[in-house]
């Protein structure tokens, strides 16, 4: 278990460093902005007739610091707030803490991303096995080509094409928001149906986005495992075909855990574009809107959370990997 703990600790360590770097980056970014937004806010409060003390306190609540203190103190105060899980107060969602705004948006990113991940995993891995076994046939070649092509196409191109085909041209699927706004949210048939139909396009885009990665990785993995000596050796020992298939499957799945982390990163990164196109109120949309609205605390928070999600995905992938591979475990 020692090796595993070490590896996980390294992952966790680099993850924490990454989160710290991103947080520091956003802090200095806000400082570097033309016309420090904190100062601007402060000035605005003053012109509204607020006492300097109150104004300063309000700015501190929003940004986690005010520019009236030395830079280092501002930074530590900001970090201290961050450690307590306080990301400041959103400006565009007047007065609402950033954490709450993000908490409302997070499910609408996680739900389609994870659904898309499961769908693409099932389809991509199956297609990858077929592409590997039939690699010398025309169909196998076309399957591989579909994988490379889809893996290469930018996310928004996929999203726009899907939206165009299924919404504009054939008018099968709705898009915009998470459900029909006229419906009462809750556990009722029409609302759930509406949520599902609104999610189809984003989920399909996420799924397509990572389908190619799964396919290509699974294909090359199966091909290399099929060529492994222990498969032939087990055949020569008279091991049953079913058991051999299990040997192949378990060995071929292993390298895919690196794809898992990559895929999730890709999807979270792509959420900005995809959610913008489908007007889906998730994290990515939040990030983009916060920039449009100059809501810098919200921007920093959304960016930080996307980073955290990716770091967690990496650690998860590492954990899963080590559960399967004894060479890492011991």
């Amino acid at each position, binding site marked *: 278990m020692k090796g595993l703990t070490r590896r996980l600790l390294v992952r966790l360590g680099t993850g924490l460093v990454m989160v710290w770097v991103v947080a520091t980056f956003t802090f200095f970014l806000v400082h570097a902005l033309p016309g420090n937004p904190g100062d601007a806010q402060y000035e605005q409060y003053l012109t509204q007739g607020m006492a300097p003390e109150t104004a300063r306190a309000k700015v501190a609540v929003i940004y986690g610091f005010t520019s009236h203190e030395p830079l280092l103190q501002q930074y530590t105060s900001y970090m201290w707030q961050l450690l307590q899980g306080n990301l400041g107060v959103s400006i565009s969602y007047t007065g609402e803490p950033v954490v709450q705004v993000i908490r409302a948006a997070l499910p609408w990113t996680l739900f389609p991303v994870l659904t898309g991940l499961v769908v693409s995993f099932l389809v991509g891995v199956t297609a990858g096995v077929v592409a590997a076994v039939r690699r010398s046939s025309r169909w196998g070649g076309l399957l591989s080509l579909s994988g490379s092509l889809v893996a290469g196409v930018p996310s928004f191109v996929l999203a726009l094409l899907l939206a165009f085909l299924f919404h504009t041209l054939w008018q099968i699927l709705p898009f915009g928001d998470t459900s029909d706004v006229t419906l009462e949210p809750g556990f009722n048939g029409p609302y759930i149906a509406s949520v599902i139909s609104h999610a189809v396009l984003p989920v399909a885009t996420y799924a397509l986005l990572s389908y190619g990665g799964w396919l290509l990785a699974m294909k090359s993995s199966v091909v290399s495992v099929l060529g492994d000596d222990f498969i032939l050796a087990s055949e020569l*020992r008279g091991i*049953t075909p079913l*058991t051999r298939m299990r040997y192949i499957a*378990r060995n071929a799945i292993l390298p895919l855990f690196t794809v898992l982390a990559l895929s999730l990163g890709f999807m979270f990164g792509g959420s900005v574009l995809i959610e913008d196109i489908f007007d889906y109120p998730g994290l990515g949309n939040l990030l983009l809107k916060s920039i449009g609205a100059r809501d810098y605390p919200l921007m920093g928070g959304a960016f930080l959370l996307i980073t955290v999600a990716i770091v967690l995905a990496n650690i998860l992938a590492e954990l899963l990997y080590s559960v399967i591979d004894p060479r890492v475990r011991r």
Partner: protein
Amino acid sequence: MTDTVQLTAERAEAAAEVSVRDLTVLYRTDQGELPAVAHADIDLPTGTITGLVGESGSGKSTLALSLMNAIPAPGRISSGSIQVNGVGDVTRLEGRALRRVRGRALGYVFQASQNSLNPLKTVGKQLLDLGRAHDVQDMRGLVRRARELADEMGMDGARVLDSYQHELSGGMRQRVGIVLALVLNARVLILDEPTTALDMLSQAAVLEIVRKVHRQEGLTTLVVTHDMGVVSEIADRLAVMYGGRIVEDGPATEVLQRPAHPYTRALIGATARITGDTDTARALPGRPPDLTTVPRTGCVFRERCPLAMDVCAETEPQLLTWAPDRRRACHADPATTAATGEGA
């Protein structure tokens, strides 16, 4: 009764654990189907160790794999038979029947550098998979037998069964391969390059173990190797392959002392370098042929042969008995092959 030659041939066949007759294995390539093994005839007499020697691409591994009827995809056994004592013609088996023969009647051990174990499972778990595949009722007995075999080979049986492949050294993997090949009491053991990729000490140890197990279990063993040293160390009989043909065979000591085919002579000559006898050592000129470069007519060795004559380009020499228990496929006079090789 008058045909005494026929009679002795039949008697010889009866004493052979494995007899290969007219075996041809074809591989599909860009240039059509080409033979990797052509018209091979060979017996593995019961209780002997036979060494099968040749350069890479000579078809020796293909021949070994066809004993298991396990020629990989673009290849196939196109003609011939492989009779195994108590099993019948292996080339006619398929599906479940073939699967049951593999591992139970015929044990196959891979090259040591190749990883013949599933890296994600312990040896013990793979042993149980093996037992299940062959409907072994007494799993305890199977484990006990495996442990005994491992102990006999100088390993800690209990520990080995609890290990993953990456926890075993090359020599140990090789021995585990032998354990798995013999645990179901196979009568025939086939070793593909058993010493390649092992250091000198492990080589000696593995050969010692093979010899010991062979004797104790009363096996019939085929050792496929490119290393003349291995053969001289361990084999009772020796067969030499070149370009998919068996070019010479006979008792190992006799073939090594008096090779009757120029290729055998060249192989032995090339090995002499290791012993330091550089005067007589001769590297073989040219490169070993592969499927596509083997001459299609005449003798396959003629392009590298110091004795090549006109007839070699026209007629392929047959593998014929030229002295008691000695066969060779060469047009040249047996006396000349001996003389020329030495002088050159």
